[in-house]
């Protein structure tokens, strides 16, 4: 089971607590993972990626396995540890401000 941790504001928006769990087939990528999150929680469309261009919003980051994957290609395969659920995929609201 793929595990996704959303930032608190998006958990509130989607009316969920704790981790999101996804069951996906095929090669796991940022795009397929985010598509699945948005399909399950449609109110999140546009909050992580632009509604039209699908480009990551500037102050949203994607972390996994201790790495910042925000600048990776959305179609690059995600680490095996994410695909098998050993590690969660973290969607982060970037630290900004004082």
């Amino acid at each position, binding site marked *: 089971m793929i595990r996704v941790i959303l*930032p608190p504001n998006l958990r*509130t928006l989607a009316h969920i607590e704790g981790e999101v769990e996804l069951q996906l087939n095929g090669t796991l990528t940022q795009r397929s993972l985010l598509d699945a999150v948005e399909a399950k929680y449609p109110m999140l*469309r546009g*909050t992580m990626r632009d509604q039209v261009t699908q480009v990551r*919003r500037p102050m*949203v980051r994607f972390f996994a396995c201790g790495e910042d994957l925000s600048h990776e290609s959305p179609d690059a395969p995600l680490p095996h540890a994410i695909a098998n659920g050993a590690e969660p995929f973290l969607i982060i609201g970037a630290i900004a401000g004082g």
Partner: protein
Amino acid sequence: MSNVRVLVGTRKGAFILTSDGARKRWKVSGPHFAGWEIYHIKGSPVNPDRIYASQTSAWFGQIIQRSDDGGKTWNTPGSSPEELQSSDGMPKAESNKFVYDASPETGKPITTHQWYDGTQHPWEFKRVWHLEPSLYDPDHVYAGVEDAAIFESKDGGKSWQELAGLRGSDTGPKWQPGAGGMCLHTILLDPKDPQRIYIAISAAGAFRTEDGGKTWKPINRGLHSQYIPDPNAEVGHCVHRIAMHPSRPNTLFMQKHWDVMRSDDAGGSWHEVSGNLPSDFGFPIDVHAHEPETIYVVPIKSDSEHYPPSGRLRVYRSRTGGNDWEALTKGLPQRNCYVNVLRDAMSVDSLEPCGIYFGTTGGQVYASVDAGDKWKSIVRDLPAVLSVEVQTVQ
């Protein structure tokens, strides 16, 4: 007996204050949408239980929220399971999709505007500043957005289409952002003419349509702004707010960056009515519910000192449609007060006597139940207040 519902948008959520018609005891609910900026929250005049809210975040973008039960529960329009089925299997979920119209069919799309350095800059959607529900249909609502444009939804906020004729008017490339961004913050619907709408943009000015939003013309003649190269230019004026009494839709009142202005010909020409105000800088302006010549402003010291002159929070009332102003101070802090009152943070109820309400960047919401003679803080220590709207409900 009528009740009053005050809808308060703040930097960190929405609050709903309710009272009976006496307006003495208030119940506070919230924060709704905790942690998000609520730029505006406003109910439909046709169905007061239908309320729209603009929920935004620099991190996560724009969300439109809708309540159909007077603010008890909320949803993102179109997000129920049965509404989400589309042919490709992906949810539509387009209630937060604001895309500028670049089609050749609808007007003359403008793709750039003036930027701070004098170059042209593409329009980029940032947020919804103002939601104005239709006077006739609770599913029809207008949205004023940054970068400045007007959108409408005819399906209760599920989807949005730009009224592109506004940006497509000849002046679009001359518009430029003010310090708060290039926002369309005021939408006034003429109750006597469904085809006429007024809007205002910082920093472009005021505009009017006579055909329901297809075509627009600037209505800024008489405005004088020293901060632009031609003080009398057709556009470029930093209009902060416009107000209108529904019984007299040809008479408009304006709080500009500096100057309080008045028009008696639907914006065709303006003249200054600042009169004896201690400062004619400010943000909100509003009109008494039953007296079309009684208007209210909150003078602010200057464009860099966004607080009341002398640290005294004073609402000024004119019973003569401007020029002659009286300070209203009873119940308002008269020393060491350095809050601001933002452009959408004042509203009136329709009870008798008329209630006046405003919120501050210090988190207080003040109310007067006698048209401004005396004031009382009905809630305090909220996050900075961005908007205040009032509903009179049964």
